[in-house]
């Protein structure tokens, strides 16, 4: 980019910004690290919590347009029951799918590459049952035609990934992980959840797990992150059983790094103690610095 192009871009960007002071700040730091907003909704009624969180995040209309193809990346990796905290809570997934259809979605698709056998993971997690009758489709992509290889130009260790086409070809991509401890990655939050969307995820461990998590997140960018922290596995993750805690929270945001940084606090950890949060912050994927994140706490 030469100086003239830069000035042009800056002028266009500047026109869109109301406050000149903000404009000056935006020039100093790359946009994602400039801060982020994370909404934390506490309560016991999961559908009501989701509804409140979506209101705060800008309303369903901001994410799901009429006839949109919505793809939801949940965590349905393990053949364990909902209370174990190994998978995203089925009630949350159901509430999301119903509301997405109500908001005008044409389809809600949930591609997932589970760790345990798919049939049992989907049924024991309660997710298959919760989705019955909603019209949403949970499935394990298996055929070659259900994947596309995606180049990761900014990837340090991960140069390409084999991603389900539904993750790539959708109008609205939402990441809905469950927060839990993880034996290899320390915690698994939103960024790590994408491992269930790479057919060759085994190779991540051979390269450098934390860097590969970050690399994947440079190309796959969800419109919204909703972290299930209704119950969290403090130890024994990702499969469990482990020691449980019950924060009864949903963490929503557009910035995946910021959401993970806030969620790390539920485990008594500092964001940058998790290598992939630190690396993602440094790579400018989002803001992992709690001092720069605006956390909006509400209860329902």
């Amino acid at each position, binding site marked *: 980019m030469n100086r003239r192009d830069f000035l042009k871009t800056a002028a266009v960007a500047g026109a869109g910004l109301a406050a000149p002071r903000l404009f000056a700040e935006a020039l100093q730091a790359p946009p994602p690290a400039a801060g982020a907003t994370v909404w934390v909704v506490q309560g016991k009624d999961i559908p009501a919590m989701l509804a409140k969180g979506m209101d705060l995040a800008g309303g369903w209309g901001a994410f799901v347009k009429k006839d949109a193809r919505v793809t939801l990346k949940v965590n349905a990796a393990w053949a364990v029951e909902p209370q174990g905290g190994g998978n995203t809570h089925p009630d949350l997934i159901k509430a999301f799918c119903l509301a997405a259809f109500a908001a005008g979605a044409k389809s809600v698709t949930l591609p997932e590459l589970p*760790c345990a*056998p798919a049939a049992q993971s989907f049924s*024991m997690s309660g997710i298959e049952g919760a989705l019955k009758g909603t019209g949403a489709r949970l499935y394990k992509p298996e055929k070659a035609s259900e994947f596309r290889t995606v180049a990761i130009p900014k990837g340090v260790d991960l140069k390409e990934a084999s991603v389900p086409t539904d993750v790539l070809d959708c109008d609205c991509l939402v990441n809905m992980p469950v927060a839990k401890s993880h034996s*290899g990655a320390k915690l698994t939050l939103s960024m790590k959840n994408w491992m269930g969307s790479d057919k060759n995820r*085994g*190779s991540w*461990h051979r390269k*450098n797990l934390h860097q590969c998590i970050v690399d994947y997140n440079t190309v796959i960018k969800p419109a919204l992150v909703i972290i299930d922290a209704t119950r969290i596995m403090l130890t024994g993750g990702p499969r469990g059983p482990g020691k449980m805690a019950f924060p009864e929270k949903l963490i929503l945001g557009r910035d995946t790094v910021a959401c993970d940084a806030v969620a790390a606090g539920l485990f008594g950890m500092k964001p940058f103690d998790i290598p992939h949060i630190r690396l993602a912050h440094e790579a400018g994927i989002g803001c992992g610095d709690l001092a720069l994140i605006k956390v909006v706490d509400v209860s329902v």
Partner: protein
Amino acid sequence: MSLFRPPRRLFHLASAILAALLAMQLIPWEPAASLFPSLSPLLGLSGALAKRAFWPAALLGVPVFLSGFVHKRWFCFHLCPTGYCAEAAGKLNASAANRFAAWPRLGGWLALAILGSAALGSPLALGLDPLALFNGFFSAWRRPLEAGLPPLATGFLLVLLISLARPHLWCLRLCPLGSLQDTLHETGRRIRAFRTAGEEAPKAERRLFLGLAAGGLAGLFLPRLAPRGNAVLRPPGAAPESQFKSLCARCGACLRACPYHIITPDLGEAGAAGLLAPRIQYGQGYCFEQCKACTEACPTGAIRHLTLPAKRQLALGTAVVEKHRCLAWQDGLYCMVCQEFCPYSAVSAVEQKGVNCPVVNADLCRGCGACQNDCPARPGRAITVRPTGQHVLPG
């Protein structure tokens, strides 16, 4: 004497089709796989005899056994699917019919040997039972087809070839189940004759005892002569290794029942006596903690029925970490996939230079292979299940 005189052929065809459907396990009820083979007294009853145990399906052989006294080869002509196929093959070569008359009745000796050796605990040649052969053929065509599977189908194909070259030879001279029925019918005839006409009292033939005794001794000693192989992992609930090899009829029901395709026929790893007996090999999947399908399928009791809690308390072997291959131990990488995938929390972490490294707790390890299956180390997994013998874990 036939019970179903006019539609005999049709009835026989229908049971052959049903047997094939059951053998292919297209009927979604796990115990169905063992129903048809259990009809053979040589499989169910002699299995129960050898194991000194009892299970309901083994009783299916009782009516077949008893029918042998009354109706000559009723089972062969109405229910036996191998009999149906052998008969059909023989019809293709009608000119060669009855060219076997000079053959000795090997099947009779075989049946006696099977029963005698079963009574002593290690049945001999169960794999020659016609229902085991039939099941083996249909079990072998599992998708994706693996190199080890077709040998399981060869026994049945051989029967068809024999029947084509020498019609009726298999059924009338070689088949142990057919000849057993001949023996039973002969005995029944004598009993009836004794009762009605006061003929000479039926005395047990010397031949019978000789056969039983010789078979029993052969069952005890023959397997010991076979070259020894290495220890292998067996399906959950497998009988002790020495008995397993002889008790298994090579019907393939367990490997067909396994949804994760980890059971394959052994091609000699465990020695000649264990040829084609099922073994577990991890690579495509692991022994899923919510599954006990193979334990439902076995007609001979070589694999005993297990409840899910019992299966989950059983170790098939024990996982061992090979540190020199391990991404965490050797290369200092964040991995712990073995701990992540372990359904029994048997892998724990110790820290080495700030990175978690795996250690197996042998008291918790079930040898299910989840760790081995997903270990990302290449080439060669850094955690593998060793065949340390099946054992029930404490607690």
